[in-house]
């Protein structure tokens, strides 16, 4: 792999942003119901307007934000924990957010407040895990990982407990939340989530250079002038904001955060200065495409229903990743 040059950085990101815009436009055009494009532009067809701008556009924006958040957080966690199997849900933030959502559903809270509760849950989880994992004022990697995993297990056990005692309709809603869905409640919620995701993403890109050095270990990193401890905190806070916002609005959309960073690594290399933003953009593109498929695929079959987006991400993601991996392995053998 060649070094990351300024030109490569801008070229790759520019291409990805263009691809993202193209994907958004395509997603606006694709859907199960027919749109009268002339009527839309004239302003005569309110139905077409509603389909494109009330139903499709907010969903596409949400898919983009969530994809960006999950993929870039996944890449950051893989660097932070020095573990290729890390996904954005591994450190317990998602567990806290999901538990808060499930509790709100169980208590019959109106849905607008469920997202807020979930985000508060995510921040609470972040604080709890942070303070539990700290040892002598430092945040060791393995303690962080173990605390996060145990916290997650505890949260999900509570979720299953709640699921057993609520009414059937609520149990169904809980399942829907856990699978991950991009059904938009209000554009306001999406915009607020976008702010948090944007903030987190900016923070993450800012420290992405230091992530390269951190993969060498704490002593090496400190010797090379990178404050590993402080970098870890920044990464943790940035990803908590992003993952908390994403999970509170969309539930647990699986597979995106795990495999997109690996796919990007295979194509563009392991330099985190490019990997983090590129993963974000590719994640956004992937999730928009997956959601478009989820809401369109089955609608004109004999089972005309929407699929949960998590189903598509795994069904497409897994084989696609295997193909990419095989091609890469074949390349190195030659």
């Amino acid at each position, binding site marked *: 792999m060649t070094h990351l040059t300024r030109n490569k950085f801008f070229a790759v990101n520019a291409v990805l942003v263009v691809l993202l815009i193209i994907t958004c436009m395509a997603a606006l055009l694709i*859907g*199960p*119901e*027919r749109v009268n494009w002339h009527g839309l532009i004239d302003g005569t067809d*309110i*139905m077409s*307007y*509603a*389909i494109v701008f*009330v*139903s*499709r556009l907010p*969903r596409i924006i949400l898919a983009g934000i969530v994809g960006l958040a999950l993929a870039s957080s996944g890449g950051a966690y893989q660097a932070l924990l020095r573990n290729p199997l890390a996904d954005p849900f591994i450190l317990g933030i998602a567990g806290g957010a999901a538990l808060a959502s499930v509790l709100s559903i169980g208590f019959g809270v*109106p*849905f*607008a407040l469920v997202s807020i509760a979930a985000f508060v849950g995510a921040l609470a989880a972040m604080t709890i895990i942070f303070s539990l994992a700290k040892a002598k004022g430092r945040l060791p990697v393995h303690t962080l990982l173990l605390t996060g995993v145990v916290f997650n297990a505890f949260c999900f056990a509570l979720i299953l407990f709640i699921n057993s005692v609520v009414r*059937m*309709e609520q149990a*169904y*809603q809980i399942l*829907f*939340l856990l699978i991950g*869905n991009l*059904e*938009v*409640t*209000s554009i306001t919620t999406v915009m607020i989530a976008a702010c948090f995701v944007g903030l987190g993403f900016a923070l993450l890109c800012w420290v992405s250079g230091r992530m390269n050095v951190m993969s060498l270990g704490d002593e090496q990193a400190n010797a090379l002038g990178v404050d590993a401890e402080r970098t870890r905190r920044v990464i943790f806070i940035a990803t908590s904001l992003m993952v908390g916002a994403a999970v509170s609005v969309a539930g647990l959309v699986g597979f995106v955060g795990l495999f997109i960073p690996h796919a990007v690594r295979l194509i563009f290399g392991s330099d985190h200065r490019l990997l983090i933003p590129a993963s974000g953009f590719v994640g956004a593109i992937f999730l928009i495409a997956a959601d478009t498929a989820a*809401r369109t695929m089955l*609608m*004109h*079959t*004999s*089972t*005309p*229903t*929407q699929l949960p987006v998590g189903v598509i991400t795994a069904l497409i993601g897994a084989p696609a990743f295997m193909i990419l991996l095989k091609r890469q392995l074949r390349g190195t053998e030659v």
Partner: protein
Amino acid sequence: MTMKIKIFTLVFLLCWSTSAYAFERIVSLKPNITEILFELGVGDQVVGVTTYCDYPVAAKDVARVADYIKPFAEKLIVASPDLVIGSQENTSKKAIWQIKEMGYRVELFPFTTLDETLNSIRRIASLVGKKENGEKLAAKIESAMRGVAKGSAKSKPRVLVVWGQRPMVVTGPGSFMDELIKVVGAVNVANRGSMKYPHWSKENVIAANPDVIVDMSMGSEEVDYASWKELVSVSAVKNDRIVTLNDSLFRAGPRLPEAVRQLAIAVHENWSPSFVRRGQGR
């Protein structure tokens, strides 16, 4: 000779009384079955119901021995039923097998269509020795259906019945509610394919453009109008025709006549909506 006559009379009386022997301890595994049993007049013999059984009021005092899908083994044993009645389509098959293994008598009946429901009511009635009441109940439901169909005349309003939000579960073709929609002389806009309870997105609602939306997602509480408000182009939203009905009325049981009456009033504009809660405006 008189001895023989006495023995014969005794045996005859014994057989006659055992043939009219009703089941003394009946357990119902579904709310609609509970309602049917009480309506048939064997409510006193019902010793176990589900946690969802809330009608009639007397049913609330009966021991809870099951949830919606399956019975609680220990509670069932304590209730010691001589007859367990469940639904063919959604009582857990494994649970049924277990109860049968324990030696209890289990009878399952189908309730997926109107015809099946009427048939099941008659069969349950004859099983518990209330054949006449069963005929009366079935006839009452049948005539109510006919009466409503006659009353709802010319215009066929386009209706969407929503059972849940996030995911938005709607009534599809072939479901029980779909049949009731047809009975009241309306058109179900969710008529694609053959899935009984498909999940819809906002786009599907906008394109279907129903005249009336019956939103049962909040049980019988107020509708969450905020979630419908933004679908500005939909006729039901524009004309403020989003209504809610009590979903427990629509159980396949004795309250069906009232259920279809309320449904007819909700979907046909020129009926008086004295008890149907309407939209509070935008």
